[in-house]
C-alpha cells in the first residue's frame, strides 16, 4: 500500500475544465448562425462548411503527424473551429480548390508553423481569409444572391457594405440585416443568430464580455458621432453593427483565446482598436470590409498590449471602509 500512494504538490483537485470543452462550446455557439446559413444558402452552405472542416482537420492531422512528427491534436476541436469560421467568412460559391488553399494556409502557415494551438500569433481563420482575399480578390468578392431572395434572376449580388459607399439606395432594411437574409458570406448573415451564440458563450463562461462589447461600442460611438453631424446611411451605426463580418468577428474571431490579450484592461484596448480600425477601413479604405484586417492588426499588437497591461493587483485599491 505505502508505495502506491501518489505524492504531488497541491492543489489535489481540478475543475474538470478542458481545452476540448471550451472549443466545443464555441462550436455550439456557432450553431444558430449555421442554421441561418443553411436556410439562406441551402445545400451550398452545408457543403462548403463540411469541406472547410474536412480540409482543416485533415491538413492538421497530416502536418502534425508527418511533418512535425508528433501525436496529432485534432481532437481538441480547434481545427474544426478554424474550418467553420473560414467557411463562414467566404462566399458560398467559392471554388473548392481555392477553399482548400485557404485551409492549408490557415492551418499550415498561420497555426502549425508557429507551433500549433496556443503558440500562433494570428487567428488562423482570419489569416486564411485574408490570404484568400488578397490572392483571389475576384472570387472572394462576388456573393451569390440568397436563395430566399424574391427576384428569381438574381445570380450574384453586392453585399450591404459594398452598396454602402456606391449605391446606398440599394440597402436592405435594418430588420433584414438583423435577421439575416441579405447577401454576404455564409456566417455573416444574421446578427441575431450570432448574438444568440454570444449569449451562450457568456453563459458558459467560455469568453468574457470585454472584447465583443468594446468592439461594438467603439464602432457605435465612432460612426454615431459622424452620423450626428451628417446623417447619411454610410455613417449609420446600426448598419455598421449589423452588416458584414462585424458580429462574427467581434464574437467569434477577435475573442480567440490565443491571439487576444489576457487582462480585462488589455481586452478593452484590443477591442477598441479593432472597432476603430474596422470603421476607418470601411469608411476610408479601399476594401468595403475591414473587420478581418482590424483583427489581424490587433492580433499583432496583442503581445505588446499584454506587456503594458497588468491585472488589477490585490492591495492596489485600498479602500478604508
Amino acid at each position, binding site marked *: 500500500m505505502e508505495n502506491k*500512494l501518489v505524492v504531488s504538490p497541491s492543489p489535489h483537485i481540478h475543475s474538470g475544465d478542458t481545452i476540448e470543452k*471550451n472549443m466545443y462550446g464555441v462550436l455550439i455557439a456557432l450553431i444558430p448562425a449555421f442554421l441561418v446559413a443553411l436556410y439562406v444558402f441551402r445545400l451550398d452552405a452545408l457543403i462548403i462548411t463540411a469541406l472547410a472542416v474536412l480540409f482543416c482537420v485533415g491538413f492538421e492531422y497530416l502536418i502534425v503527424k508527418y511533418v512535425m512528427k508528433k501525436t496529432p491534436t485534432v481532437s481538441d476541436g480547434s481545427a474544426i473551429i478554424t474550418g467553420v469560421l473560414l467557411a463562414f467568412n467566404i462566399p458560398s460559391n467559392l471554388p473548392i480548390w481555392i477553399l482548400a488553399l485557404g485551409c492549408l494556409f490557415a492551418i499550415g502557415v498561420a497555426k502549425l508553423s508557429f507551433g500549433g494551438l496556443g503558440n500562433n500569433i494570428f487567428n488562423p481563420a482570419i489569416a486564411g481569409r485574408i490570404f484568400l482575399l488578397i490572392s483571389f480578390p475576384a472570387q472572394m468578392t462576388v456573393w451569390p444572391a440568397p436563395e430566399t431572395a424574391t427576384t428569381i434572376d438574381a445570380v450574384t449580388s453586392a453585399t450591404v457594405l459594398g452598396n454602402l459607399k456606391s449605391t446606398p439606395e440599394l440597402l436592405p432594411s435594418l430588420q433584414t440585416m438583423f435577421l439575416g437574409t441579405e447577401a454576404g458570406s455564409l456566417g455573416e448573415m444574421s446578427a441575431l443568430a450570432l448574438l444568440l451564440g454570444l449569449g451562450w458563450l457568456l453563459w458558459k463562461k467560455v469568453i468574457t464580455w470585454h472584447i465583443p462589447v468594446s468592439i461594438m461600442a467603439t464602432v457605435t460611438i465612432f460612426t454615431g458621432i459622424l452620423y450626428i453631424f451628417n446623417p447619411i446611411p454610410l455613417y449609420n451605426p446600426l448598419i455598421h453593427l449589423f452588416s458584414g463580418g462585424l458580429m462574427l468577428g467581434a464574437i467569434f474571431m477577435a475573442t480567440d483565446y*490565443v491571439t487576444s490579450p*489576457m487582462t480585462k484592461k488589455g481586452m478593452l484596448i484590443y477591442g477598441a482598436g479593432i472597432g476603430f480600425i474596422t470603421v476607418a477601413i470601411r469608411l476610408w479604405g479601399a476594401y468595403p470590409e475591414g473587420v478581418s484586417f482590424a483583427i489581424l492588426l490587433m492580433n499583432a499588437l496583442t503581445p505588446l498590449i499584454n506587456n503594458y497591461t497588468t491585472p488589477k493587483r*490585490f492591495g492596489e485599491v485600498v479602500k478604508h471602509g
Partner: protein
Amino acid sequence: MLKTFRIGGIHPKDKKVSAGNAIQPIAIPNQVIIPLGQHIGAPCQPVVKKGDTVKVGTLIGKTVGFVSANIHSSVSGTVLKIDKAVDASGYRRDAVFIKVEGDEWEESVDRSSDLKKECNLSSKEILDKIAAAGIVGMGGATFPTHVKLTPPPGSKPEILIINGVECEPWLTSDHRVMMEKTEEIMVGITIVMKALNVDKAIIGIENNKKDAIEKFGKSAENYPGITVEALKVQYPQGGEKQLIDALTGRQVPSGALPISVGAVVQNVGTVLAIYEAVQKNKPLIERVVTVTGKDVKQPCNILSRVGIPVGNLIDAAGGLPETTGKIVSGGPMMGKALASTDVPVTKGTSGILVIPTLEAKRKAMKDCIRCAKCVSICPMGLNPTLLMNLTEFEVWDGAEKQRITDCIECGSCSYTCPADRPLLDYIRLGKGRVNSIIRTRKTNA
C-alpha cells in the same frame, strides 16, 4: 447581497459530507510520535530524555527564539526515544516517541466542561499563557499565535477578525467546533480582544454553514462589540488577506501584514485553544480533524491527540478504502500529500482527505492556450501563466516585478487551467527563488 472578496475567486464543489457528524473521540494507541517542529519558525529543543515519565500536558519541547511554539505531551507514559520521524512535509525531523501508559493529566489542567467566562488577566498575562500553551494558527498555517497577537511597534490593532470561513472543500472540523463549542469560542474572542486591546470583532462565516451563522448570531447578542457576518461562498475566502477584504473592504498592501490595515485574524479553532489555555490551563495537545473522502465509509470529525498516526484516524472512519491513491493532510486545495499513514497528527492537521486512484494523478499538461482564466480567477490579481513562464526560463527579475512573492499558493490557477498546466508548482519554485534573492540583496545592502 452577501459580502465577499473583490478580486478573482473560484467555486469548487464543497463536498462537506461530514458536516452533520458530531465530533467523536478516538482511542489512544500504544505509542505516539510528537514532532518538535509543528509550527512556522524554529523547531523546539527537547526538554525530556529517554526514560522520563510524562503526563498529558507536560512540556516536552521548549521554544528556541521568539517565533516558535512550545510542545507538550499529549499522552501520559514514558519517553522511548528522541529520533527522526517523517512528518506531513515528507521530511524526517526530530520527534519525541512516547510509550503510552494510562491517561494521567497534569494537575494544573482544569478538565471540567464548565464554561468559565470571567478573565481578569492583563494583556501581557494572556499573551504569556498563550505562548506557554504552545498555541499556533490552527487553520493550517501554524504561525505561533502569541507572535501574531504581539503587534510590531508603532502599529495599533483596531479590529479582530475571526475566521470561520473554512473555504476548503471537504473539511468540516471548524464547522463542528463552531457548532459544539460556540460559547467557548465567544469567550475566547473576548479574551483575544482584551489581549489586543480592541473593542470590535467580526466573525466571518461562509453561507454554506447557515446553522453556525445562526448560532453565533444568537450568542453574539450577549457580547457587545462582537458581530457575525455571513459571507458568499467563494474560495479562497479563508485566506487572511481575502477575508479582511471581504469583511472590512480594506486591502492589505503587497508585502505588508494585516496589522497595516489595523486587522488581526484568528481562526475559530485557534480561538477555542486560546480559551482552553487561558481559562483552563490546557496546552494545545489535541485538535479536531475531519477524516473524509469519496470512498471513505464513515466520514467523520475526530478529536485527536497530537501524535496519533493518521492511519488510526482513517481506521476510525471505516478503514482505508481499497481505491486509495492519495492521502492528503489538510484540504484538497492547499493540503499536503502524505507518503505514509504513519505520519502523526500535528497542531495544524485540519483534515485527512483520502483521494481515489482515478483522481489522484494529474493529466498530462498541454500548451497554454492563453485563455486567461487563471488571470481572471487569481485572488491576488497576478498573471499565473506569465509567472510560470518566467520561472521556467528563470527570469527572476521579471518574476519579482510581476509580484510572484504576492502568491498565497491557494492553487486556484492550477485548479482552473483547461490545459492542465501545473501553474502553482512552478510559481511556488519561482517564489522561493525570488524570496531568497530578495533576502540576499537585503543582507548585502
